[in-house]
């Protein structure tokens, strides 16, 4: 190895705010060199500021890619991480790549479910740490058991997402997810017309 390789860009920064807030840096060999996670499903913007600072300290010139967890998740929190990931990549002059957040739950195989509020859960089939099906929405009390080739798969109701696993999933070829996985249309029912005020 020549002297230049030590400072060469080889690390991946990953950010996920689909459930709690998670920030990680993984080096080119797949070793996690920074990992912080707060499974607080609120206060994403608050947690993220400090985590990002600590993640980038001394590593700015080593980051070659930023990975963003694209959900599913509660919309407002989810967007904080995506916006931050994209802007961080812009600031570092490197690409940003979005992946499904459910890849950040296990490196094995499972039916991964996460709370997306309103008494619903989102679920995906994860095989060897990569999302192989989903995400789908289901009532929290009635998430269907996977069938066919995935019948009998262990179910994991995740309390948090590990951004380090997202970075590793990308290194292993996880599919790109360019837009946030909202799964629901924006709440905006056009009103039926003006309310009457006189009788």
């Amino acid at each position: 190895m020549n002297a230049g390789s030590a400072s060469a860009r080889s690390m991946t920064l990953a950010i996920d705010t689909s459930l709690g807030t998670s920030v990680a840096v993984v080096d080119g060999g797949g070793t996690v060199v920074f990992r912080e996670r707060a499974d607080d499903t609120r206060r994403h913007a608050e947690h993220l500021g400090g985590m990002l600072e600590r993640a980038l300290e001394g590593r700015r010139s080593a980051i070659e890619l930023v990975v963003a967890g694209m959900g599913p998740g509660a919309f407002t929190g989810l967007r904080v991480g995506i916006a931050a990931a994209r802007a961080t990549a812009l600031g570092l002059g490197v690409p940003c790549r979005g992946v499904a957040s459910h890849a950040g739950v296990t490196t094995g195989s499972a039916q991964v479910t996460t709370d997306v509020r309103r008494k619903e859960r989102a679920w995906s089939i994860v095989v060897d740490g990569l999302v192989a099906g989903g995400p789908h929405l289901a009532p929290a009390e009635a998430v269907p058991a996977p069938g066919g080739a995935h019948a009998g798969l262990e179910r994991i109701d995740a309390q948090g997402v590990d951004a380090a696993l997202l970075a590793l999933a990308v290194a292993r070829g996880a599919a790109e997810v360019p837009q946030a996985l909202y799964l629901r249309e924006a709440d905006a029912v056009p009103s039926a017309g003006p309310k009457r005020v006189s009788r």
Partner: protein
Amino acid sequence: MKAPVVLGIETSCDETGVGIVRGTELLANRIASSMELHARFGGVVPEIAARAHLEAMEPTIRAALADASMTLDDIDAVAVTAGPGLAGALMVGIGAAKGLATARELPLYGVNHLVGHVAADVLSGEPLELPTIALLVSGGHTSLLLVRDLAGDVELLGETIDDAAGEAFDKTARLLGLSYPGGPSIDAAAAEGDARAIAFPRGLTAPKDRERHRWNFSFSGLKTAVARHVERAEAAGEPLPVADVAASFREAVVDVLIAKALDACAAHGIPRLLLGGGVVANARLREVATERCAEAGVTLRIPPLELCTDNGAMIAAVGAMLVARGDAPSPAGFAAESTLEADTVQVTA
């Protein structure tokens, strides 16, 4: 020392704004609006606005840098709107600002949107004379401020207790079957109308309101009065005099706004009034303000329209002022404050 170059990010409502200033010099002012996405709902839908901010943010930052012929290497600090505004919308700008500032190791200032509207005037090329009364009217806010010092002494004299003035225009436009946004469509409809045809109520101007609501606004009663008028015409099977209703409604809004602003000028002995916010695009508002300020001996300041509507340059201007004063940046853990008070210029916790 050269004045600091600050990039400002604004996402408090439906405009994704990114501006760049050097001290008080305007270098770029890019705005991506999601307005047309809200048109069929007759008003800003917060979740639609937030989704649009997320997609518009990076392209708008790039466009602003290109407009200023700059790269991120030229930026000395980042400022972002911390509030007041729609929480989900604000959060997109704050997430992006934290990412950008942290990646570039730049100081980040979370600043007040309302103070930004006042600071916009420093970019118009002439020094802002203080103290001044400021009337900020948009779809999201209707506020009357006493500004003694932009960077630390801004007092909220009054604000709307129900609808913002811009919202009143939007809702009334719907009642009259006019298009969104309501400001321009009511303006157009009012052109042929008689502003004195209907005596619509002036909210919170009765003597009994003087003590508690002297400088507060209320537009819901006015909206209800218009609705009643429309329904009465319908019930009677008469055609609705849209032009007269639009003109009379607009006159009522403008009258209350300017009367209260000038009352604040007189009460505080401050012969200066600054206008800001998107409703300033309303020609009748500017006309009445010009006439009555002249009569009252009050100097009127209206920044160029592209600096009156929500924009990132005004946020950058606040940031530049804080940097110039040597103020410390906001802490890494700051968050959106959808109800941030006018007297908090910068969030420090």
